[in-house]
């Protein structure tokens, strides 16, 4: 069995490894999210109001976050415009 386990182990990932991989991704994501400044939700609302003056948008379509890239803090805004608006 041990030999079989060993041979299979080459292909099948152990559950502890899966746990570690998943946590690595999740924690990186959550750390960035929790580091976001407190004003972010309010700013998001105000930006939405401005955009809504000009285009009809779905509130959930605006994604906003602060990222760190090469030592720079980057404010990222991502908005998908509705289909008919071409």
């Amino acid at each position: 069995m041990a030999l079989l386990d060993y041979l299979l182990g080459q292909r099948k990932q152990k559950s502890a490894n899966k746990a570690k991989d998943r946590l690595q991704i999740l924690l990186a994501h959550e750390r960035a999210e929790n580091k976001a400044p407190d004003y972010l939700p309010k700013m998001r609302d105000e930006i939405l109001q401005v955009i809504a003056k000009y285009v009809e948008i779905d509130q959930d379509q605006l994604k906003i976050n602060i990222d760190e890239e090469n030592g720079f803090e980057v404010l990222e805004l991502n908005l998908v415009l509705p289909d008919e608006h071409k």
Partner: protein
Amino acid sequence: MSKVIVVTSGKGGVGKTTTSASISTALAQKGKKVAVIDFDVGLRNLDLIMGVERRVVYDFVNVVQGEATLKQALIKDKRVEGLYILAASQTRDKDALTQEGVERVINELKEDGFDFIVCDSPAGIEKGAQLALYFADEAIVVTNPEVSSVRDSDRILGILQAKSRKAEEGGAVEEHLVLTRYNPSRVNAGEMLSKDDVVDLLSIKLLGVVPESQDVLNASNSGEPVVLAQDTDAAQAYLDIVERFLGGEVDHRFLEEEKKGLFKKLFGK
């Protein structure tokens, strides 16, 4: 110099109270003057684990609200010199504790010459847990080798780094990891996160590993902190932890499967 230690985890039921009780007891055995405070208002438990449940007259909330003096509420342990327990209230709700009130109690303990003030945090990341960690100089983060516990520990580390008084003043709470309910044979089988995995994920200094052990339940049944059951692995693990906490260099133990001899294989246990 008094030190305030918070024992915290985010996730519930991982071993905070077990750890608070044993660490406080072992520190007192080392000749330190120790107060251990139950911050779990409404869900008092430390008194049971310490075996002093029948001696609680006044509690933490009574002191915070000025209904009793600290002297009246502190329960002196009958086994270990220098060990005092401050029970949580069973009947009040969580809002009964205020930051000013907690600060007053902690300052009074400092003035009374306590070396260590150990705060047993409630589960969660809300107000109760935040209050328990706010005044901490050092944090013992109790984690199980399991995904949700590791995630919650990371959350609580974030809170320590943002919302503790130390952090607000531009400093940092010193963080220590206690990895408990560890099962070396499952780790070896690749079924459980290893100590190195958890240290890697949380990037925090490992204070010690406590093995999964039936002796913990036995100890709580009889109201004795497990560290007093000297010949058990769990007790030895906690003694090592306290030794390291006080600056001693002790190799990590209980990381390998117990090698069962023929006798044990045949007759179990």
